[in-house]
């Protein structure tokens, strides 16, 4: 609890007045000559226990009534956010999470989490005595002074964005400012929805934040204002990847549903080259991943478009944008020990299959590693002992940037490891038997189900040789004895895949099942994604900002253009020579929040309080003087009741006074 008129609390000394009066009265007695002292002695002996307790209660009621009156006049504030504040503050640093998830509303027509937080903080600032307000917004990450806190919600610095927030970074900035500026009695107010993606609980910077908060000269309280984890109906559309493949534009989309599990038909609006079309997608369960093919003509050297959902409780996660430019060849680099081997031939054919237009495959030996075209390659097939040194570093960078790498068993094991994985021994089955496949993951990876959801024919694979794989990655497909058949290690934006057998009749019948072809083409597609990255950007990141003399122009007209916010908002933009489809960060589509125990671990031993606003209309703080006035009345009423003498305690009035009464005996 805090008080708007804190100096009035000095008046609490007045609560001692009843006690002082009582003590003075005890000392300032009158003297009277008295006859019936025997009754006095007896009464004094009997007047113990209840009587004294009642007397003390009366005294306590009077004292508490005065104290409650003083509290009421001091204008107490209650509420979880500022309620436990001790003393007044002169500076408040507001860290505002402007991420896309903060635009979620509890219901249609309600304010978003961000708007709600801003309204409540404006009110709290006013009631906290209007301290100096500094704002660090998650989009710009910079510290700004807010001259008029009441206009907080109208500032462009507090507007909605499609960015993500880096809460640890923002907290470090706030702590650094307090450490350097030492503004006196200050507090950090953090308004966020506790989204895991923004809070990054595994980030090592949290240790520094805790240490920074503890080391501040004047222990600054960290007050976290968040909204309750409402189970609101919301659909999220996410662009997993977009790339041009031949005469079509491939969009990998993901539709996520926050609430409900039944079938739901969702109308999707596609816009391409100014033409709009609609399509109904039925989502079953809470997540649907699907691919959209947009046909392109040879004249379509450049283009852009967007896909959107109908408005719902978060308007900022309903649309995705895409753009494309000139088609680039799908280039594979096959590094093999023996370019003339059967397996190398099959692999080369798979990388240059008829369905892949403008696909090229360059065959090199391990000694020619320096000739690999890292910049334009989409897939590296490494059918040789694992590389080391410079080649290994370049391969790692390639995968990190989004390229795909497929490793196939070499003739010799070698001792090298790459991507925390390495080849093991060569295995052969007992005479007359084969290695056959066991389980495999059907919803992702190179052997995921086809477009009609039909599974790949992995059951047809028969192998007579295989090489074991060891590492920290995960198996996408296993042999029937549990050893990995297809193994993947995710690295940065790309992935490294190990296959334990070869498309060679001396190893397996993969060339017969053509499953190696499926894997290579899917890896090639995935790896080519990075080549289209020139046309993609994430809202708020450096690439989405104008550079040099670039002039920004919004190409789509899904939303009105706001120059102050466009670096932080999704859309298709022309920045000088660049055409960019700016989308939300993928993490903003994940609704997962950190729980209280995680928060407690993150801010362990730091002076923080969490105010979870369950009702969007709830005020953060409220003046409680009415409650104290009621308390005054109650104390006075209690005092009056305690002062009342019971009926049976009246004096014996049987003595004769003025009129004759039959008081004589017999």
């Amino acid at each position, binding site marked *: 609890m805090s008080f708007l008129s804190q100096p009035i609390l000095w008046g609490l000394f007045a609560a001692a007045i009843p006690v002082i009066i009582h003590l003075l*009265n*005890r000392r*300032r*007695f*009158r*003297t*009277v*000559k*008295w*006859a*019936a*002292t*025997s*009754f*006095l*002695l*007896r*009464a*004094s002996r*009997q*007047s113990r226990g209840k*009587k*004294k307790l009642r*007397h003390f209660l009366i005294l306590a009621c009077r004292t508490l009534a005065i104290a409650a009156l003083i509290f009421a006049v001091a204008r107490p504030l209650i509420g979880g956010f500022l309620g436990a504040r001790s003393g007044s503050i002169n500076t408040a640093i507001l860290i505002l999470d402007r991420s896309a998830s903060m635009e979620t509303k509890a219901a249609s027509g309600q304010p978003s989490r961000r708007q709600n937080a801003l309204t409540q903080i404006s009110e709290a600032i006013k009631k906290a005595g209007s301290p100096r307000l500094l704002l660090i917004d998650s989009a710009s990450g910079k510290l700004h002074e807010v001259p008029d806190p009441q206009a907080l919600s109208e500032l462009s610095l507090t507007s909605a964005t499609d960015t993500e927030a880096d809460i640890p970074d923002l907290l470090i900035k706030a702590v650094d400012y307090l450490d350097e500026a030492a503004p006196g009695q200050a507090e950090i107010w953090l308004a966020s929805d506790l989204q895991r993606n923004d809070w990054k609980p595994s980030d090592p910077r949290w240790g520094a934040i805790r240490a920074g908060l503890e080391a501040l000269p004047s222990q600054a309280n960290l007050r976290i204002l968040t909204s309750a984890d409402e189970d609101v109906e919301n659909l999220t559309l996410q662009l997993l990847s977009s790339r041009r493949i031949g005469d079509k534009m491939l969009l990998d989309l993901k539709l996520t549903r926050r609430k409900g599990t039944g079938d739901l038909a969702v109308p999707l609006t596609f816009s391409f080259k100014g033409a709009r079309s609609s399509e109904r997608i039925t989502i079953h369960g809470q997540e649907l991943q699907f691919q959209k093919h947009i046909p392109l003509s040879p004249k379509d050297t450049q283009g852009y478009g967007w896909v959107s959902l109908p408005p719902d409780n978060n308007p900022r996660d309903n649309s995705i944008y895409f753009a494309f430019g000139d088609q680039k060849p799908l280039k594979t680099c096959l590094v093999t020990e023996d370019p003339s081997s059967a397996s190398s031939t099959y692999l080369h054919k798979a990388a240059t299959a008829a369905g892949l237009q403008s696909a090229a495959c360059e065959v090199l030996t391990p000694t020619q590693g320096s000739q690999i075209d890292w910049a334009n390659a989409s897939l590296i097939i490494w059918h040789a002992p694992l590389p080391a040194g410079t080649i290994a570093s370049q391969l790692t960078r390639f995968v990190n940037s989004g390229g795909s790498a497929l490793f196939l068993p070499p003739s010799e094991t070698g001792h090298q490891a790459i991507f925390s994985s390495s080849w093991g021994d060569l295995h052969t089955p007992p005479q007359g038997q084969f290695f056959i496949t066991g389980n495999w993951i059907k919803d992702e990876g190179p052997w995921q189900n086809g477009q009609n959801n039909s599974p790949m024919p992995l059951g047809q694979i028969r192998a007579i040789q295989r090489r074991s794989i060891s590492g920290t990655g995960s198996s996408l497909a296993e042999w029937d004895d549990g050893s990995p058949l297809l193994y993947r290690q995710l690295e940065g934006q790309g992935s490294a895949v190990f296959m334990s057998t070869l498309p060679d009749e001396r190893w397996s019948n993969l060339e017969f099942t053509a499953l190696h072809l499926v894997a290579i083409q899917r890896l090639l597609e995935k790896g080519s994604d990075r080549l289209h990255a020139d046309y993609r950007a994430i809202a708020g990141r450096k690439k989405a900002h104008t550079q040099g003399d670039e002039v920004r122009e919004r190409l789509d007209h899904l939303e009105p253009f706001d120059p102050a916010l466009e670096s932080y908002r999704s859309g298709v933009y022309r920045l000088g020579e660049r055409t960019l489809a700016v989308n939300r960060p993928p993490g903003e589509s994940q609704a997962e929040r950190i729980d209280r125990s995680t928060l407690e671990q993150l801010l362990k031993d730091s002076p923080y309080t969490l105010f979870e606003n369950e009702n969007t209309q709830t005020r953060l703080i409220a003046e409680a003087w009415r409650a104290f006035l009621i308390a005054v009345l109650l104390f006075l009423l209690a005092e009056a009741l305690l002062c009342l*003498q*019971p009926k049976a*305690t*009246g*004096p*014996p*009035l*049987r*003595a*004769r*006074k*003025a*009129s*004759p009464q039959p*008081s*004589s*005996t*017999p």
Partner: protein
Amino acid sequence: MKYDFLDTEVLARLGAIPLESRSSMIGNVAGRHRSPHRGSSVEFAEYRKYVPGDDTRRLDWKAYARSDRYYIKEFEADTNLRAYFVIDSSGSMNFSSADHPSKIDFARRIAATLSYLIVNQGDSVGLSCCNEKIHLEIPPSRRPAQLQAIFESLQDLRPEGETGLIPALHQIAEKTQQRALIIILSDLFLDTEELGSALQHLRFRKHDVALFHLLDPQEIDFHFQRPHRFIDLEDGSTIVAEPQLITEEYHLALREFLENVEKKCHDIHADYHLLQTSADYEEIISHFITSRLTKKR
């Protein structure tokens, strides 16, 4: 009149009502009060058989004519009343509150007025005052000069010291041979058991006992607002008390005390009157006299 405690108008108004004894009296002169002896009054008492030596003038010849037996017709004897005032003159009787008379003043008025009325109707009156012991004793007399002596004594009475009413009553019971009306005026701040014993002693000696229990209104109400230091009027001891805390217990103790006193009086058929000094003493005396008329036995 030179005595403050006497009001001639009150005396004139009360003079018309005779004071009666509720029990028979043994006196040496004829009067208006019943005697245990047979006498020559007009009130028939009983018949008894003639025995030799009886006065033949008292034979009822009509009875002899009807029954042929000698009967002596006896009549009630009337004698005079012997009243004896016992006034408690301990220090506590000096208490008064507000503009009320002190208890001793109230006792003076009652004693003087009743003495006047008693002597005026031809009866004897005596006075005994006691604190630790009996310090003033005026034997009963029916002479008009007796009033002068009593009034002078009441006028000079100064309450002080502790009460010795109980031994005084025992002493009076022993000393007073003839039946008498013993009128006690006191605040009775003493042990009720011992009081009961003393009253029993008086009753055993066939005295008619009337008890005027005098209390100040403040002693009954105990209405004090702030802490007080109470100084005992008899022994000078002090008690500092917070009246708000002890009022209830005080009232309980007082009520119990009054009930005990009344019960003791009731046990010996004493005429008990609990009085506040704020009351009108004329009304009290009037009520006392008239109640005795109706209760005469």
